[in-house]
């Protein structure tokens, strides 16, 4: 009887796993090298890159807002880190400074939006443009290579613990921390309350402004983490590093929301695996990136419609 209940309550989750399994089988039949150690490492790398950014965005969506700037803030942070390295700083200090810049941008975003009640979409388009423009200042837009080999930054990607690459471990740690805070602590409850009913949350004594600002800081910071790790992998600072994060991150968070009924970090995590599998499979099939974008857009649209349908069904039940 317990199994029947489980299936009834988690229909979409089950469907998700089924489709995932189908995809994996499909890709492995079509491409021999899908299930190889090297490709799985690649897969993991893509997953972590998307997952960090999606994790950050998840917080913004939980508090009921939107952020279009996290990718471009990531560009600024990545270039800042690269610039620091080029100046001779060691890897860790450079990374911290890069993340700090990202966090400050997020703070500004959150403050302007929460304090003045401005439309988040327009503000983050503007702030994204500013961040992106600023990232050109370091090198007039050129790649930054200097000192990368000697600074130790490449180690981020090379270090493995028990055979698992460091970024993956970092992702798991951050995910577990986020999961813990969002689901098991008062902080998590206040985040969700702010997003679900900001008026009732205020009347219950929650300082909603704090949580909105915190969400934007997290979104910018985790987006920066994603671009910095990618920079470490590429071995050079590239202004355009974060530009492609927007669509996959939104698709991930909304897919996660469709699966679990509300935005969650676990939803975003497993959705990012799903999307990474699709993207990886398509790359192996030598499909160009724009085909992947098409698939992502379609996934996003389907996730949206699914969420809407389940919301309508629930509203009807309540009358």
């Amino acid at each position, binding site marked *: 009887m317990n199994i029947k209940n489980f299936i009834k309550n988690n229909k979409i989750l089950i469907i998700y796993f089924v489709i995932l399994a189908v995809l994996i089988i499909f890709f492995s039949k079509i491409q021999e090298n899908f299930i190889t150690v090297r490709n799985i490492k690649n897969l993991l790398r893509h997953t972590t890159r998307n997952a960090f950014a999606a994790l950050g965005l998840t917080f913004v969506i939980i508090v009921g807002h*939107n952020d279009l700037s996290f990718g471009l803030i990531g560009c600024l942070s990545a270039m800042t880190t690269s610039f620091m390295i080029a100046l001779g700083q060691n890897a860790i200090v450079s990374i911290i400074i890069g993340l700090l810049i990202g966090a400050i941008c997020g703070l500004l975003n959150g403050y*302007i939006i929460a304090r*003045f*009640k*401005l*439309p988040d*979409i*327009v*503000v983050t*388009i*503007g*702030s*994204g*443009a*500013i*961040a*992106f*423009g*600023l*990232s*050109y*200042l370091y090198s*007039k*837009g050129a790649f930054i290579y200097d000192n990368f080999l000697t600074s130790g930054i490449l180690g981020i990607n090379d270090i493995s613990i028990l055979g698992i690459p460091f970024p993956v471990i970092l992702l798991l740690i951050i995910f577990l921390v986020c999961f813990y805070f969002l689901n098991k602590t008062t902080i998590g409850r206040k985040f969700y309350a702010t997003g679900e009913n900001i008026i009732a949350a205020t009347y219950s004594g929650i300082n909603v402004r704090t949580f909105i600002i915190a969400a934007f800081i997290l979104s910018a910071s985790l987006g920066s983490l994603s671009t910095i790790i990618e920079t470490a992998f590429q071995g050079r600072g590239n202004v355009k590093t974060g*530009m492609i994060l*927007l*669509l996959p991150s*939104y698709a991930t968070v*909304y897919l996660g929301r469709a699966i679990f009924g509300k935005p969650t970090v676990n939803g975003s995590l497993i959705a990012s695996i799903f999307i990474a599998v699709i993207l990886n499979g398509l790359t192996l099939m030598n499909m*160009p*990136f*724009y*085909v992947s*974008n*098409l698939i*992502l*857009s*379609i996934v*996003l*649209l389907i996730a*949206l*419609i699914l969420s*809407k349908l389940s919301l309508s069904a629930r509203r009807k039940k309540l009358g």
Partner: protein
Amino acid sequence: MRYMFIWFFVCIFTVFSVISPVFRMMSNLLDILRISAIGSLLFLGLTCVVAAGEIDLSFPEVAAFTSVSIAYLFQRGINIGIAVLISFILGVMFGVLNGGLVSYVKLPSFITTIATGGMAKAIASILAKGKPIYVDSGSVINKMVFGYIFKMPILFLIVLVIYIFIKYIQDSTTIGQYIYAIGENRKASKAAGINEKKIIITVYILTAFMASLAGIFLTGLLSSGQPEIGYAYLLDGLLAVFFGALIIKDRKPNVIGTIIAVIILGVLVNGFTLLGIPYYMAEIAKGSLLIIGVLIIFIRKNNHKVLDKKNK
């Protein structure tokens, strides 16, 4: 408030003219008008969508799609006229899709148009295999894009005519009224019998219509179908619409304001380029202006709400 901006613009214009001899050349100024024309078309629909209280982030990609589609079909030997027609209709279909999803399925406009925009761009890239397709778009389009009548760029005049027509609709027809009505107070509009679903579909179709038109001209202008028009137009579009709203009509998006804002932007960018200021500085300036503009509009709006309460 609006006079402040006009004076600011006059100052900048003067500064540029003094510093750069190239700037004040007639050919340069006319060039600005010509380039502004395409942006103006793209942002015309956006103006109406924002006035109705929604947003559309897919219009640059629809333009890209139309542009690529024309080149693609032409390359395959189809007559340029028919290629244009088919591509145009397909571009407008995106407007129907957007409108339907937002008004009937009631999806949030922001994320939906990100998705549909992504689809349009992806299809364009697939057709073009990621690179521009070079074509000669035929004498008619070339004449429209590059030609001059009475010493003014034809393209600009065409766009001006379209703008005058849309302005007429905005001010003197029920569609224009209802767009503003539902943008401002959807509840009161419905109570008065306005069919807001039809209006929303209309504005999204209008946006796609204008974007497709812009796509056609782009193909001519660049002699190619370009899949990567992109993000930059998004920023410019919102900037033009919000600043247009500030300049004229007291904080409501309107077509004349948009076209003036586009020209001002065009002057700024042109001046920056001629003065050797790199492109990314312009980005920073634009982003800052957008945020400042939104701050001004919304802070005043919130003050108005307080005034309203006092009147009670």
